[in-house]
């Protein structure tokens, strides 16, 4: 167990590194996912088709392959960025599809009467989506979006396993594989680190759910 105490600063740095990946991917995928969801409900057929095509492709292929694409294929095409950003990009593109699905299911959960009322007082598509449907959708989006976010936090470990370095998972591989420490205490420490991210998030999310939930 003294591995954990001796290398505590390493674990803390890894924890912060993981948080960094998570924060960037969170912001990116929320923005991209919302845009995709709007595409999927828009009146313009090509946009709708693009949105649903993107979602069904991403949802059916592993995150690992997405990372192989962003990390190995993009540089071949002359798109060079630091490895960290390529990893974050992969996680963002992947998570965005699930955010899109969550947001869309939220939009669908708003009773049709709301959208009809908005339309019948003369609001345009953009207005009724923006000021009537979306504000309500966001509330029913929180539970599914919450599980997407938690899954993304756990998926940040895949980015770490991919060799981005400096995150919690790479601390685990470094201490066990390269420096030969016993696997059980080190990996338990890593596991606790991830639980310290996911469990509080789950708790906060269920609090928010209780606060903003609208009963239908």
């Amino acid at each position: 167990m003294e591995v954990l105490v001796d290398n505590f600063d390493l674990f803390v740095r890894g924890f912060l590194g993981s948080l960094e990946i998570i924060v960037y991917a969170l912001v990116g995928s929320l923005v991209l996912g919302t845009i995709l969801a709007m595409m999927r409900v828009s009146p313009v057929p090509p946009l709708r088709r693009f949105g649903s095509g993107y979602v069904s492709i991403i949802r059916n292929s592993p995150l690992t392959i997405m990372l192989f694409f962003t990390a190995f294929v993009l540089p071949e095409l002359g798109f060079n960025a630091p490895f960290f950003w390529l990893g974050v990009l992969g996680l963002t593109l992947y998570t965005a599809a699930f955010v899109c699905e969550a947001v869309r299911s939220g939009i669908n959960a708003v009773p049709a009467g709301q959208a009809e009322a908005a339309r019948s007082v003369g609001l345009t598509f953009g207005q009724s989506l923006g000021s009537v449907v979306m504000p309500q959708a966001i509330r029913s989006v929180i539970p599914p979006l919450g599980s997407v976010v938690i899954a993304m936090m756990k998926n940040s470990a895949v980015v770490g396993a991919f060799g981005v370095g400096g995150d919690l998972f790479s601390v685990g591989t470094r201490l066990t594989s390269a420096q030969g420490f016993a696997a059980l205490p080190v990996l338990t420490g890593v596991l606790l680190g991830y639980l310290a991210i996911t469990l509080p998030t789950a708790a906060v999310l269920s609090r928010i759910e209780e606060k903003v939930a609208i009963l239908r």
Partner: protein
Amino acid sequence: MSGAPSVLYDAPGPKARRRSLVLSVVVVVAFLAIAAWVVLRLRSTGQFAPDRWAPLFWPGDEQFVQVWGRIGTGVRYTLQAAALAILFSLVLGTALTTLRLLLGRYARLPVVLLAEVLRGAPVVLLIFFASRVLPQFGVDLSQLWYLVIGLTAYNFVVIGEILRAGVAALPNGQREAGLAIGLTRQQTVLLIQLPQAFRLMLPALISQLVVIVKDTSLAALVLTGPQELLRTGRQLTQFFNNPLQTYLLVALLFIIINSLLGRLATYTEKRLSQARSAGKQEPEGDITETRTDTDVEADAAATPGDTDADTSTTQGRPQP
């Protein structure tokens, strides 16, 4: 969504149709421009060179047969790992749910704690954990089994949650009827509640299989085997030096497998809801409104994840 007029906008009149057409054209042109740029980019980096594609896609190529033999093995290992993982997850998940239903509030605390820990942990870490920690305790298995153990450790909890949501969605009368005819609580859970929960949650269980199939590819990152699809692809890229083409093919194979599973999930969902409404039609006679109401309720209740099962599947959709 396809074609059907949405409540979000009017059935388009002539003006709106024109505007939508103009927008469509603009969007298509924009997409084409992006596609053209990508194609140019691909060309200038030599991605269209035939020797990058031929071994994978051209049956006349001398390496084609050998390459596809390896891909076939890859698909087999991927499916094998996924099948073993779902099998163990189902067995353990059922056991977990049974325990949670039968144990008293305090006795089930350790079970709940274990479930929470496993559910909050990244799968990739659990796989890595299995491959590193088990050998230290003298459990020496092949890499395939570490993958299966890692996948099972996460997924049995998720399947347990799915089943629990299924049991919760059953009408309370089922349990009461079981107890009333003199079954014990154990018998009621095993003979009355769980079999129905399985049926109710079949679509969600199949969707979870999609997640497992996808997660087998994590072995390529943290294990030294088995020769599953992604590892095979990785080795092919080292040989042919064509990451774009190979990963495209690997992604395609995953997409094919998983969309077939997705189809199966939607199909069973449809079949089940048909069976449910057909079963209800008879006793309730002509009160159509009552019938549809209860159906809607059953569908809503069948959605796992709206209680506290937040990482389990929502409405039969695979989670990331």
